[in-house]
């Protein structure tokens, strides 16, 4: 059975392609994404308390390493196969080395509507994976030059809306525990999927607008927008297995690896690598990879996780 939230995404996409006048006011988009970010953080934080830090640490380290790795792999592909300018290749690579919270939310919804369990510290890994790619991307574009204002890069990266809300939610959830959250559950938990539906409606509208750019930048970007997530999902699955994650956890880690950022990274790159053309990375991340992951990728990564676990167990 198809998830209704996916249909909201398609509704937005179709409306956008038909040039409907439908659009969510920017304030509504922000409201919905603020609530989603907090929800994800809170949900993760509640469970964080149950896990000893000694288990979390290796996971965090592994995920950061994966973020570095994926960015470093994507860069030469874009630079030499795709013949992009250095700044553009670095910026697109950073988008794909980082993560998309929207895709993460869809993966969570996918698993929970199928009653598949997953590790509860996934939101923490989401946060960890968001940042390294940005740093790598800047270094790839700039070299380790003195001129980079690392202080302001750090400010941009760590104090962006997304990280503050995710981390804030994590900490609050961790501090008050499941009972403490009870009174705010109706807004942050019960409405989660409804808000996700609205969010995806808007994402469909935004995605539809990328089609024009895609046509201009041609087939390589399309191929990269599908090939890169498939490759990253393999890496993510491998890391998941190595860390001993459950099938659900492995699916989510593969999804995280496969997803491409369209909030934190674009903002950071715009400030730190302004000579990169933002249209390229958004066309790929939003126009190709986001819909691919949401419509096809997540089920594929799930199948992959099932298969890999069966294989690993023998």
């Amino acid at each position, binding site marked *: 059975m198809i998830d209704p939230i996916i249909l909201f995404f398609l509704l937005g996409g179709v409306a956008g392609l038909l040039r409907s006048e439908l659009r969510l006011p920017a304030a509504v988009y922000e409201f919905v994404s603020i609530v989603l970010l907090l929800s994800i953080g809170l949900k993760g934080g509640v469970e964080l308390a149950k896990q000893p830090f000694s288990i979390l640490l290796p996971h965090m380290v592994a995920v950061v390493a994966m973020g570095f790795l994926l960015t470093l792999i994507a860069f030469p592909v874009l630079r030499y196969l795709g013949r992009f300018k250095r700044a553009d290749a670095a910026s697109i690579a950073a988008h794909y080395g980082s993560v998309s919270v929207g895709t993460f939310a869809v993966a969570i919804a996918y698993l929970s509507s199928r009653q598949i369990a997953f590790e509860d510290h996934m939101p923490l890994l989401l946060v960890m994976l968001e940042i390294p790619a940005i740093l790598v991307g800047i270094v790839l574009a700039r070299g380790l030059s003195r001129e980079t204002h690392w202080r302001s890069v750090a400010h941009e990266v760590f104090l962006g809306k997304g990280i503050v809300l995710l981390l804030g939610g994590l900490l609050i959830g961790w501090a008050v525990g499941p009972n403490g959250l009870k009174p705010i559950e109706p807004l942050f938990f019960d409405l989660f999927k409804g808000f996700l539906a609205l969010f995806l409606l808007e994402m469909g509208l935004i995605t539809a607008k990328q089609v024009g750019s895609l046509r201009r930048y041609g087939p390589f970007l399309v191929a990269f927008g599908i090939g890169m997530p498939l490759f990253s999902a393999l890496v993510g699955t491998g890391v998941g297995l190595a860390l001993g994650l459950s099938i659900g956890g492995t699916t989510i880690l593969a999804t995280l690896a496969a997803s491409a950022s369209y*909030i934190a990274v674009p903002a950071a790159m715009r400030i730190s690598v302004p000579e990169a053309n933002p*249209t390229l990375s958004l066309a790929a991340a939003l126009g190709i990879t986001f819909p691919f992951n949401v419509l096809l990728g997540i089920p594929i990564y799930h199948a992959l996780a099932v298969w890999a676990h069966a294989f690993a167990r023998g």
Partner: protein
Amino acid sequence: MHSHTRTLLTVVTEAVLEGTLARDLDRLNAHGYTITDARGRGSRGVRDAGWEASGNIRIEVVCDKATADAIAAHLQEHYYDDYAMILFMSDVAVLRREKF
């Protein structure tokens, strides 16, 4: 009424630059500025403010000609190539010159 001539510099650019430009204006001796949210179309395509990455802002600075020129030169040097941005200037009459 006794009035004085000053320059009104208007800049339309990407919303993501708001913080940076506010600091720049401060450093370049603008006594103030006014910002409104905007959308539009230009050489870099449609910017429709549907979400974070696609919004414009419209900045106005009233100042003396020299300051306006300095700001325009600074913006042209640092942002014109890489960002969606236009700027234009005109003369305006102000009442209390000490404010600008």
